[in-house]
């Protein structure tokens, strides 16, 4: 039996909308919480391998490698997110909640706010999927299961987003493909990107008073869906 993607969205929507609290939790998870989990993951990997008891070359190299992965994960995720956003503007595919009749067990005011915020942007390819899966690929080698954990969180988020009517399955698949492609490309080119990551990591060691607050700004920006970074790039490029 063939199921089309509208039916998949409606099926997921029925599961999520069966209970009002599940729907509200899904809204919260895919809203601000989604973007708060990512900085926490980066912090976790940044400090993994650091031991107060053992301070030898091997442990330092492990920490260095993890931190390099965090920088590369941020780079690949940002580029994937930016490309997905560019693509969504190019294809301008209407989101499922615009086209399909979905169950929405929350107040009309809340839902209209979401529709107003997301309705003007296209759904293809999925930017959240691209963002999460690009970093999942890069973080895969950072620790036991960290890549799978990232991918797992990504899967939960994209399924919730489909159930809420933000994206179709093909949008998500395209986003995952874009993310995995970019993550793999960055991972393959990681030695060639040493010219970028090494000086940055060296500066964290030499000027922590400047670099850590700067890193904090980047992490805050992730929670803002990288609005500041894109605004700065847009100003620099004169867009």
């Amino acid at each position, binding site marked *: 039996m063939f199921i089309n993607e509208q039916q998949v969205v409606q099926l997921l929507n029925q599961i999520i909308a069966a209970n009002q609290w599940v729907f509200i939790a899904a809204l919260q998870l895919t809203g601000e919480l989604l973007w*708060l989990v990512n*900085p926490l993951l980066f*912090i976790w990997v940044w*400090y*993994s391998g*650091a031991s107060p008891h053992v301070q030898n070359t091997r442990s330092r190299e492990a920490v260095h490698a993890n931190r390099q992965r965090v920088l590369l994960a941020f780079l690949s995720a940002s580029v994937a997110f930016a490309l997905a956003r560019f693509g969504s503007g190019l294809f301008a595919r209407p989101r499922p909640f615009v086209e399909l009749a979905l169950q929405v067990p929350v107040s009309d005011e809340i839902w209209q706010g979401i529709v107003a915020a997301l309705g003007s942007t296209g759904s293809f390819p999925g930017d959240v999927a691209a963002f999460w899966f690009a970093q999942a690929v890069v973080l895969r080698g950072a620790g036991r299961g960290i890549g799978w954990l990232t991918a797992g969180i990504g899967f939960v988020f994209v399924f919730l987003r489909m159930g809420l009517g933000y994206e179709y399955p093909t949008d998500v698949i395209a986003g995952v493909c874009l993310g995995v492609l970019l993550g793999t490309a960055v991972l393959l080119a990681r030695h060639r990107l040493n010219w970028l990551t090494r000086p940055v990591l060296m500066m964290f060691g030499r000027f922590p*008073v400047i670099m*850590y607050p700067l890193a904090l700004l980047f992490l*805050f920006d992730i*929670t803002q869906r990288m609005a500041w970074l894109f605004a700065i790039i847009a100003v620099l490029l004169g867009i």
Partner: protein
Amino acid sequence: METWFLQLINHWIARSPATFYQALTMSDRMPWLMAAIVITALWYAGERGTVPTAPGKRTRLQNRTLVILTLASLMVGFILAKGLQGFWQRPRPLNDFPLQVPIEPSVWEAVRQSFFAVDSFPSDHAVMLFVLATGVIYVNKRMGLIVLVASIYFALLRIGLGFHWPLDIWAGACIGVLVMSVAILLEPIVHRLLFSLVLQFEYYPQVMYALAFLVVFELWRKFEDLFVLVSRVSG
């Protein structure tokens, strides 16, 4: 005197729509962002090791105990200011006094509406800013002076926009300095507790830095989520 000063600052800010919009944007989240950045910078300031190499210098461990103390004082000061605001019930100048407002009336009306339910005395922003400035001056005088100047600037913006009367800011600044000074005086008593907390960052960096990020993130958001959580739990 108070109204004269308020009008003076208001005229300075309202000299063009651009400066007024800029003041609106800067006065809201920027002080809290500055606090988050300064707290982070202070955490990594100081010499490595357990003993300072010269008199007057501080180690990173010493600074970190004071950062935790400053963060705790920020929360105490902020909650204190919020409590006092409910106690005095003084209307804000923007709802009580004619001001020059060179921006869209609808935008200004939205700003005014957001302040209707919250009283003016003392200024919670001033409490936070001066707790921070006092804490930073104690650790690093040069950095503290910069934070103090920035704090005064942000406080003036809030007067000029009509969010606070000058007296609210004065009271907030006094409470801020007082709270942080008491905290510094009490530091020797709670030193062991603070030091053991700092050591946890060495033993469990992944968990502790993730938690620290959440605290700093909440600071940037004016403890909004924390207040929502407390109000939901307390019904």
